[in-house]
């Protein structure tokens, strides 16, 4: 079955072949079960709440009790809203679908590592989109970008860029369901009796479902090909199952497993694939203003205190380094500094002089 490795050398014939999809960072780093997702978000939220509570306390003791923090679901709702906004922006800029899908993915992944109470999705969304234009090879100058978005300065976007990239683990390449759907569209034309007229209509419907799926967690649990297949199945169940059976023609398997997999996806898309209720979101947004992490708010007491702390640490490091160098010079032995350097591993990467 796994053809074309017909080499006489013993090398590849005995080894197991790995699929290219499994090599991707999407498979390796961004794959969860539904339970894991919920758990991750809950844990993130709890940790965030306690950290922010502390920040409130140090700022103004006793203030935190009056604050009503967001829970994980509310955070998720807000993120979903801004995912929708990406679509609108892309339409405005006429970015290709690839950019839109990538930006959506970046936003979702970002909030699996961070909380909205630290970073408001309004800004992260703009940054994620900007980053997506770069990573998908449709770059636009920062100038051009921000000048088309009201009330946005270049620094608003740029300040967060590195943070977003870091939170993504620098996993920039994403496999998308819409491309899989395109492939499906092409491949069903190879089926023996493909009804061409219906095909186009089915494809259009399926594409709408793919776009709806972006509002859900589907891409974090299922593979893009499975999502695309589910969307096609929603548009035309018979076509989808015919295609699947043609791919897995083993007569012993009456129902290829993937057919079972797409059922929950279909349910998910139908249940979650629509924009959130405006009222509910507005409520969350209002509360967010009050429970934002003061440390991240430029100019607040907590923020300034944090900066002081960091400055102090940096100063100390610098002093320590100067000491080491001075000692080495006094030593007179040019190799002395080498030994000292080895033992004190330089953890902080931020010295430009290194």
């Amino acid at each position, binding site marked *: 079955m796994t053809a074309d490795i017909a080499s006489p050398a013993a090398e590849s014939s005995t080894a197991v072949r790995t699929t*290219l999809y499994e*090599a*991707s*960072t999407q498979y390796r780093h961004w794959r969860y079960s539904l339970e894991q997702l919920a758990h991750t978000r809950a844990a993130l939220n709890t*940790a965030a709440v306690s*950290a922010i509570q502390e920040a409130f306390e140090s700022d103004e003791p006793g203030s935190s009790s009056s604050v009503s923090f967001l829970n994980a679901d509310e955070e998720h709702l807000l993120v979903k809203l801004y995912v929708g906004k990406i679509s609108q922006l892309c339409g405005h800029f006429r970015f*290709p679908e*690839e950019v839109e899908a990538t930006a959506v993915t970046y936003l979702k992944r970002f909030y699996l*590592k*961070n909380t909205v109470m*630290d*970073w408001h999705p309004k800004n992260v969304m703009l940054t994620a989109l*900007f*980053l997506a234009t*770069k*990573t*998908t*090879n*449709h*770059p636009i*100058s*920062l100038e051009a970008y921000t000048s088309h978005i009201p009330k946005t300065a*270049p620094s608003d*976007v*740029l300040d967060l*860029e*590195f*943070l977003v*990239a*870091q*939170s993504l*683990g*620098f*996993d*920039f*390449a994403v496999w998308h369901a819409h491309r899989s759907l395109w492939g499906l569209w092409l491949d069903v034309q190879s089926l023996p009796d493909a009804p061409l007229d219906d095909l186009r209509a089915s494809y259009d419907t399926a594409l709408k479902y793919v776009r709806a799926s972006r509002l859900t967690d589907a891409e974090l649990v299922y593979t893009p090909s499975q999502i695309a297949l589910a969307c096609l199945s929603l548009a035309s169940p018979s076509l989808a199952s015919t295609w699947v059976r043609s791919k897995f023609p083993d007569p012993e398997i009456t129902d290829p497993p993937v057919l079972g997999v797409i059922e929950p996806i279909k349910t998910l898309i139908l249940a979650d694939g629509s924009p959130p209720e405006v009222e509910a979101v507005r409520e969350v947004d209002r509360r967010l203003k009050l429970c934002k992490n003061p440390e991240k708010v430029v100019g607040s007491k907590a923020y300034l205190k944090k900066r002081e702390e960091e400055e102090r640490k940096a100063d100390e490091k610098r002093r320590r380094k100067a000491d080491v160098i001075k000692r080495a010079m006094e030593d007179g032995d*040019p190799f002395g*500094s*080498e030994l000292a350097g080895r033992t004190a*591993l*330089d*953890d*902080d*990467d*931020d010295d*430009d002089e*290194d």
Partner: protein
Amino acid sequence: MDAVEKANAERQRRWAKDQKIGEGTYAVVYRGREVATGRKVAIKKIKVGQFKDGLDMSAIREVKYLRELKHQNVIELLDVFSSKMNLNLVLEFLDTDLELVIKDRSLVFLPADIKSWMAMTFRGLEFCHRNFILHRDLKPNNLLIAADGQLKLADFGLARDFADPGYKMTCQVITRWYRPAELLFGSRYYSTAVDIWSVGCIFAELMLRTPYLPGESDMDQLKTIFRALGTPTEEEWPGHTKLPDYVPVGQFPKTPLRDLFTAASADCLNLLSKCLIYEPRRRISAKEALNHPYFFALPYPTHPSKLPKPAPKRSSLLPLEELDGNAEPNSSGPGVKANPPNKLKRKHSEDGMNERSKSIARRLDFSQ
């Protein structure tokens, strides 16, 4: 944010920087090692926040593609970690590159050596193309060579995915001497064939020991190409006169490759000519090239461990004008902090190896 930073700090502790070995406009390259195993690595520290458009595109491309590709003939990105101001790429450490090998006149190339290098180049390239990635900057300088002789594609700063239909790509890619005619004529819709042309030029350079098509400007490059391979006709390359930057450059006759590559075998020239076909669609693909009779004919390709390598140079810090993603610098010198004892030790062990290998007892053999 703090959780993310913490995770990063942990990753950072896995790697230690030893010594600066190169510096460019946006990155500094260090020789380093993995703390746990002592394995040699190159750490490229990219300063962030330097450019008005944010994270540099080349850095993004390198990270994006190297993160997804894992192959014997593609440089390996071992880890990525970052702090507030810097992005660090941990790459495998590679001593030298093909350009240094070609330029080192004390090295003698056997036909089997050239075959071996070409096979490795094609394999690495085929893997990229299999993943629908165009490299777009192939040149001997970007083909790095490891200690065990394996050749690796490096510097993905100009790479990109295949474009979706109808989307334009820039034609200002690939170093001029290795750039195909379609790019010089300004084509904005191209394919993997551009990489194959570069490989063809590298192939020729391995045989000539000097760049095959060195043009001094884009216009001159076209002339150089046509002078070497003849001006293409409409029949040979349909539609090329309609390309955006097309200009007639002069009529040159086709001269057979054999006139210049006198020592090459027929198979060899056949493959070379297929890499340098004008019409991109007819140019050979990487996969086809690997199945070309040239590679199956005798002599067998030299085993990578036996390929010639230049002796390690020692020179002080060299500034590199544009650090285009080379994981290693042009020199593996001591740099500012001198570590003479280590260097000497290394040299001795190398020589020792050669002596030992010569005196290995020959297999006792009754089958004479």
